[in-house]
Every structure is written in C-alpha cells, then in structure tokens.
C-alpha cells in the first residue's frame, strides 16, 4: 500500500471514530428521573442539578454576627435576603463549589443558597421517624382524646421542645400512626388528606401539655440548642474560597499538563508564592538570555573555524 493511501485510510478511520465518539458523547448526558422535589425555578440548580445532592433536612440558621446572607446562587454574589439566627429552614439540596464550600439550597422562607456551615442540623421529625420506625404502630392502639373539635398542642415529633396551639376536629381527621414514648405518653399522628403529610403529633393523654409538663426530666432525645460558633474573619461569598475541604475532582489536569486544582483566592494569596513565581520568571529569562549570547558566540567561532579551514 502506498504511503498516501495509508494516510488517507488512517485519516478516514480517525474521522469515523471521532464522529462516533462525538455522537455518543452528545447522547450520554445524565438522565435524572426521580420523584423527589426539584427546584425548577432555581436557575443554578437547573444548570448544575447533576452536582447537587438531595438533603431534605431541617437546619437552624447560625451565622456570624447573628445573620446569614441568602445568595441567588453559589456563584453569584447577589443577596436575596438576610436570614436571622435561630430561624429553622428545610435544606432541599447541597452543592460543593470549586473552593470546597458546601452550599445549602432552601425555598421555604425565600429561594436561595447560603453556606452550609452557617447553619446547624436540628433533630427533626425525619430523624424521629428514622429512629423510631419500629416502635410506631399503624393500628388504632388507643383512642383519640375526644370526638368533637378541641384545642390541642401540635408537636413536630413526640418529645419536641417546640409546640403550637391549634383546633382539631377529631371527628374529621384521620389518625394514621401511634407511638408510646419512654415515659408512657401515648401520641397520635394526625393525617390531613388535603395538606399532604405534615407532622402533627398530639399527646393523646394530655393534649394541652407543654414539653416541660410532659417531660420534667427531659426526653433523652437530641434537642438543638444554638451555640455561638467561631468563624473566620471573612464571610463566605459566592465564588470565593471557604473554610471547607476542597474536593476539586474535576480540574486536576489540563491540556497543557499543569497541575492546577488548588487555585488560590486573589484576596488570600501567599505573598511568598508571588515572589517565587515572579522572581523565578525573571531569573530564568536572565539565564536564558545569557545562554543565547553564549550560543551566538559559539556559532560565530564555529563559522570562523569553518571559513578558516576552507
């Protein structure tokens, strides 16, 4: 086979392989089909949903100086609102940016993102269901406190510190789960068909008793108490390095063979690095100039030698 025929054949094969790979790549985008809530109004989520992790847990805002800024996205420094410390929010999704900062997405109070480290996880009804699913009964173990409408205290889960007053028509509401706690209190979970399945637990023994009345010695369940944390001097903002661990899996190498997954934030550059980089560039350029001058003189001598020989 002639050389040019071989080259043509190789080029055809390569073009074919690349066409096939390109078509395959174009159809190989990750298809995500699940039934969990997805915040489709969130442009950032829409673009980076594959990198976001479903959380769906309750957190209590606990940021520096008593507030936390809610940003439009982990990469846009646009403040949507300010959340006060102590506010309970449901974190729907999390996202880890290139600097290792973990961001939390909420859409209950307002839609936006805030650094996850500015909130503490609190014991929630989800945790309660997970911890006690074996002890929860779905049979009618005990009767409701009454048949008509009465005022009761709602709890998110048996043993919750927080409660709020509400009117319940026990003739209308369905009681779908039953639970007896360690102190022997009987609890019923109210199910409202039209509201979905929010967590409304009522202590059937004493529907108007507060946490202190029910558990004078505490419940033994984890209860969140907000404590003041220490933070770095500079607040975390989108597009800047946080104090979290860097994951940087995607940018390890590049087309030129550099290592660059640990880029430095402009505000926090170690001056030593600048000195080393700048000084070395100048030093290497100077050395090279010297070597080029030397090369020129070598070549000149060589030429003279050759012309002398001739």
């Amino acid at each position: 086979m002639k050389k040019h025929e071989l080259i043509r054949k190789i080029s055809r094969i390569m073009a074919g392989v690349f066409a096939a790979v390109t078509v395959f790549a174009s159809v190989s985008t990750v298809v995500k089909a699940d039934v969990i809530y997805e915040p489709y109004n969130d442009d950032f989520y829409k673009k980076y949903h594959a990198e976001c992790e479903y959380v769906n847990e309750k957190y209590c805002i606990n940021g520096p100086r008593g507030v936390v800024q809610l940003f439009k996205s982990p990469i846009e420094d646009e403040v949507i609102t300010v959340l006060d410390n102590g506010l309970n929010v449901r974190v729907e999704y999390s996202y880890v940016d290139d600097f290792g900062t973990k961001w939390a997405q909420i859409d209950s109070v307002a839609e936006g993102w805030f650094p996850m480290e500015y909130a503490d996880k609190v014991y929630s009804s989800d945790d309660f269901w997970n911890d006690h699913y074996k002890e929860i009964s779905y049979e009618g173990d005990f009767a409701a406190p009454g048949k008509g409408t009465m005022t009761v205290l709602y709890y998110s889960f048996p043993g919750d510190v927080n409660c709020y007053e509400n009117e319940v028509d026990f003739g209308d509401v369905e009681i779908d789960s039953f639970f007896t706690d360690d102190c022997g209190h009987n609890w019923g979970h109210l199910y409202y068909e039209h509201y979905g399945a929010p967590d409304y637990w009522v202590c059937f023994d004493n529907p108007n008793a507060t946490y202190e009345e029910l558990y004078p010695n505490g419940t033994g369940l984890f209860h969140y108490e907000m404590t003041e944390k220490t933070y770095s001097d500079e607040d975390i903002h989108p597009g800047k390095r946080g104090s979290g661990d860097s994951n940087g899996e995607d940018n390890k190498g590049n087309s030129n063979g550099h290592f660059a997954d640990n880029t430095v934030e402009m505000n926090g550059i170690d001056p030593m690095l600048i000195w080393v980089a700048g000084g070395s560039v100048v030093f290497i350029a100077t050395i090279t100039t010297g070597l080029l001058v030397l090369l020129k003189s070598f070549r000149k001598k060589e030429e003279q030698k050759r012309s002398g020989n001739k």
Partner: protein
Amino acid sequence: MISIYPILHLLVDGICALSMYSYFMDGDKAMMYILLYNLCAFALQMPFGVIADMLPGRRRYDKEKHCMYLALIGVLVTIAGSFFSPIILGIGNALFHVGGGTAAVHDDKWKNRRGLGLGLFVAPGALGLFLGSTLYNSEDADLVFLTFRLLSILLCLGLVYVWYYHSEERKVQTKLKLFDPIQIKKYNDDSKKKEKPVFAQKFTKGQAVMACVLCLLVVIIRSYVGLAVNFSWKEGVWLGVMSALYVCFGKVFGGFLGSKLGLFWTSAISLCAAAICFVFADVQAVGLLAQLLFNMTMPITLTLLAQYLPGKEGFSFGFLSFGLFVGFLPAFFGLTIPNGCEFIAGIMCVLSLVLLLPVLRPENKAKSESSENTEAK
C-alpha cells in the same frame, strides 16, 4: 525511533501526576509544590532548550543523539524525582520534554512534515496526566506507579537499542557505498538532500522577534484558557477520559492537518471553529469539540516558531513551554473564567488567530515566492 518518544511522554507525565498527587499535594506546602513543579517542568525548558542547541555537531546524526541523551536523562531524573522532590521531578520532566520535543522538531524539518511529528509527540501528555491524576488514589496505585516506572526504563533501553541499531546500519551503508565512486556521489547528494531542512527560509531579525512575541502570546492565551475554563458538564471519570482523549487527538489532528493543509489554513479553520464551539460549550459534545479544535494550534505554534528560528529548535520549543508557565500563573492565582462565560474562550480563540496571522503570512509569501522562482526557472 521517534515513535518511542510519545509513549515515553505519556509515561513520564503519568509518573509526574502520580507523584504529585500521591506525595506532594497534601499539607500546607501543596501550593508551593505545585508552583515549583510547574516552574521547573515548563519554565526551565527554555534554558534547557538553549543548552540543547549549544551541544556540538551539525549533522542529523549528532542532533538525534543529543536529543536522545537529554530525553533519557530526563526520564531517569523524573523517576528519581518521583521519590524525593517536586523540583527534581519538574527538572526531569523539562529535560525529557526538551529532548523529545527538539527531536520531533528536527525530524519534522528533515521530513518536511509541518508539525505531524510534534503533534504526535505532545499529544499523549494529556492522557498521561489524566491517567496519573485518576489512578493515584486507586487501590492498585502502587502497582500502577511501579508499572509506569518499569515501562519507562524498558522504553529507555529500547530507545538506546534502536539508536545503536540505526547507527550501525548507517555505518554499514556508508562503508558499502564508499567502494563505488558513483555510489558515493549519489549517496552524498541524497544525504545532502535529506539532511537539508526543507523550510529553512531566511527571516529578518525583526520578523523572528515578532514571531517569538506573537507565538508566545498565543501559547499564553491557550495555556490560560485551558486552565481557566470550567465546563459545567465536566464531571466523573468517563467525561474526564473523553476530555483527555479530545485534547490528545486535537494535538494529533493539528499536526496532521498542518502537514496536509499547511499551517495557515489549519490555524484559521481550527481557531474559527473552536471560537464558535466555545460559544455553545455548555453542550457536552460541542464543548469537547471546542477542546479538540483549540488544542490543534499547539503543534502549529511550535512548528511555526521553529521555522522562524532555524538552528534554535531547542530554544523555540522551550520558549513556548515557558509561555505555558506564564499562562498558568493567572489561573493559579485565582483568575478563572466563571461558569457560563465560555464565550470568553471563544473571544480568546479569535484573538489567537489575529495574533497568528502576521506570522503565518510570511510563510505563505515565501512559499509563493519560491514557487514563482521555480516556475521562472
């Protein structure tokens, strides 16, 4: 012999990535180590390139030999550096690149292949780097490391073997031909033809300086864009493999098309197409194509500068590698292109083409002038 260098390139870059991620990327000094490694591996290629040009001997035989020695020393120093320090690792890498790269430049010149050999040489580096950075935390990382080192040493031995075989063959041929005066004349004429670099055109000092500056700027832009653009779809090992393959084949295609269509058309087509692709780079396949097209200019700039600096092939290769280091610095200090702004890379492509045009023109002019002269004769 020249085909062994690309495989060695993959292994050397793989060893460097494995060592950096396994040993030198933890702790407070990680940033300093990254900087020092890149400094030694890329910036030091410039003085090493001049040293390669200073080595005695003007014949192809001598140049090939010197390049081979440099590359061999580079491989051995890299292996040594992988045990001790990122600085030694970088120096080894730089020596290997200068040796292999200069050999590829010479080979391309003698065979009149405008960038084909260079494209083949530079391409596997991205793959080696990807393999090293992916496999360093695998269960069999030690085995991979050992395999890379052993294969490198074996290939070095292979290189030496091929070299001596080649050298002996040449001697025998020369001896045979020396007996016949007609054959001697024919042999001498042939070897003169073969050994005369095909595109050793004369350029003025001003043209050469302009070529240096413009090619350097193009390389700095390419290096920066390669680091600063973060594609939103680039996640997971599979897409990492795809990305590395596209970068690798981009360089090969660049060399291949450069030798077929010429440097001007290859640059114009690849950079215009890359600019369009970068605008729609949030689509995975288009983003991958953009990477392929953008990297096609790598062998082009290397070949182009080697044309402008005849007799300084080592320096031209090292000088542009120095540009890679300069382009790395802004991204290292945090100046990246934000997600969704890939069109900036498209603008950079257009800018690269604008910068390349003045230095691509003389080649065409000279070509047309030489063809006119031939026709006149």
